[in-house]
């Protein structure tokens, strides 16, 4: 797009402005095509047969809900490349996502898939204000992980210059940022904060560098983290979302309005479902995102269950894009607890703790069912800044946490204050839930 109005609105592709009706028609046609393309993949041949789906009988979006789901387990069972929908010779690159079980799941791309992927990344980069004269520092890992290469080629597509710093060695990242004077930072939000922290220790104030904005993704993060990044790095921070099974980064990203991430709906069909019933949830309610990659060639997945929980918003966006927006990812459906029939996520407990204490201390949710009723205990570590010698204040702190958890989740949980360092931590990721009901089941 070269009109000045579109430039101001930072819109790269006219497809982002398609009237809804046209977009739906395009999606329907592309759904029909992708079902035809995967019909010979062994998994889909069997799954379609099991679900009674005749590929050539799929006419459009009305048939979507009859199609079978694809799960992470299905991909693992199809190790390494059984989901390939094109001859091996047409594969141009292979990426993978690290599984917790050891073996990665591989995703393949044709030459055209790679072009598409770069274009989709370029769309959200342009939406955030990237221009050809910018210098962009990429501190994502370059490897099987899709973050580094995905953003790298997207930035080149915009026409900007890349510093492929890759991950690790933070003092060196700081040197590069300072000496090369990058305009834009691309990495995970937690790494951005880590860079700022190391910078402070080394006497480099990120706020004094030319850095103007950043695109962050690859992990769930919060508005509080955004505020911290913007404050500590002196930049504007944009959120983007993607996962290798769908394509990698570029599935969705924020526009200048920052009211959720626009899903690139001309290429990805999104559903938001209750993870238990698999029925659609009302708009605005959190559910599991399910994507169908409409245009990919090498390994398009149909109704892939991401396990990521977010809500959708189709109200008009001031930026003019017509695409539906997703909220930030609030949790994983694997983490979802059903307490006395109500869906509860650890992130909600974290939100309640944030409201009480500003930053969330270490916590653990323990669920048990001593008789017939679920019992939930939230153990919260007491930090020096929260600790008072006056019993009145400590009991008050516990009661405030208790009230906020009830306000956020709608459920009463028993709050226990525990000594610091007593809740177990594993490598990097903190364990947030212990569900004893499962041990008994």
């Amino acid at each position, binding site marked *: 797009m070269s009109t000045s109005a579109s430039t101001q609105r930072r819109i790269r592709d006219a497809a982002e402005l398609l009237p809804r009706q046209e977009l739906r028609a395009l999606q329907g046609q592309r759904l029909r095509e992708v079902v035809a393309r995967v019909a010979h993949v062994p998994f889909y041949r069997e799954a379609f047969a099991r679900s009674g789906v005749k590929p050539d009988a799929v006419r459009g979006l009305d048939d979507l809900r009859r199609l079978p789901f694809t799960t992470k387990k299905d991909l693992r069972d199809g190790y390494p490349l059984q989901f390939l929908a094109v001859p091996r010779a047409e594969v141009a690159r292979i990426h993978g996502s690290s599984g917790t079980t050891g073996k990665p799941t591989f995703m393949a791309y044709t030459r055209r898939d790679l072009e598409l992927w770069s274009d989709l990344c370029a769309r959200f980069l342009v939406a955030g204000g990237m221009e050809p004269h910018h210098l962009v520092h990429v501190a994502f890992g370059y490897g099987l992980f899709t973050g580094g290469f995905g953003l790298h080629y997207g930035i080149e597509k915009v026409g900007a210059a890349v510093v492929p710093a890759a991950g690790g060695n933070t003092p060196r990242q700081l040197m590069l940022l300072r000496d090369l004077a990058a305009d834009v930072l691309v990495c995970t939000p937690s790494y951005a904060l880590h860079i700022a922290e190391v910078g402070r220790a080394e006497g480099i104030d990120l706020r004094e560098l030319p850095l103007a904005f950043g695109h962050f993704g690859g992990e769930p993060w919060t508005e509080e983290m955004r505020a911290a990044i913007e404050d500590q790095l002196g930049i504007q921070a944009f959120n983007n979302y993607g996962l290798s099974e769908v394509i990698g980064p570029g599935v969705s990203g924020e526009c200048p309005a920052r009211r959720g991430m626009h899903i690139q709906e001309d290429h990805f069909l999104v559903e938001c479902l209750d993870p238990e019933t698999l029925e659609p949830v009302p708009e605005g309610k959190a559910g599991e995102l399910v994507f169908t990659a409409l245009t990919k060639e090498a390994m398009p997945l149909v109704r892939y269950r991401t396990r990521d929980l977010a809500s959708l918003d189709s109200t008009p966006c001031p930026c003019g894009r017509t695409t539906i927006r997703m909220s930030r990812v609030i949790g994983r459906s694997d983490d979802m607890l059903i307490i006395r029939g109500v869906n509860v996520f650890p992130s909600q407990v974290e939100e309640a703790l944030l409201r009480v204490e500003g930053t969330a201390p270490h916590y653990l949710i323990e669920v048990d069912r001593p008789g017939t009723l679920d019992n939930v205990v939230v153990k919260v570590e*007491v*930090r*020096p800044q929260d*600790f*008072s*010698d*006056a*019993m*009145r204040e*400590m*009991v008050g702190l516990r009661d405030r946490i208790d009230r906020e958890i009830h306000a956020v989740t709608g459920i009463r949980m028993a709050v*226990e*204050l*525990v*000594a*610091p*360092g*007593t809740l177990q931590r594993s490598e990097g990721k903190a364990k947030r839930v212990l569900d004893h009901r499962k041990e008994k089941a």
Partner: protein
Amino acid sequence: MKIHQLSLFLENRPGQLVAPCRALAKAGIDIVTSSLADTAQFGIFRLVVKDWQKAKQVLEAAGSVVNVTEVLAIEVPDRPGGLAGVLEAFDRAALGIEYMYAFTSGQRGARAICIFRFEDPDKAVAALRGSPEVRVVESEEILGK
């Protein structure tokens, strides 16, 4: 006049109280007096020690959350109405008390002393200067040096 008191957060389960005491013992730090406030689920262990800065370091190194508060040690006449007289003086000065605990000091426990945690320790110090019946114990008297 003010004395530094250390407070520790303790979970209400066996072995919680002995661990910090053992850490102080190892470091050769003498506990002058202490009190324990408890709920069904957790407790707050308050300590007056000889070298509070070193004690704080030792306790934090042992994994405790330590809070430092300023308290006043006040001598209470050992006779009927002794404590009541002191408390009446606090009342006249409109001083709010968070909590208190008592101990004895001197040879063979000759003196009764109460540790008071006031809502506002500085206001208490100022107010009690004008109360001849209340004797605030200097920290050297009970901590030595």
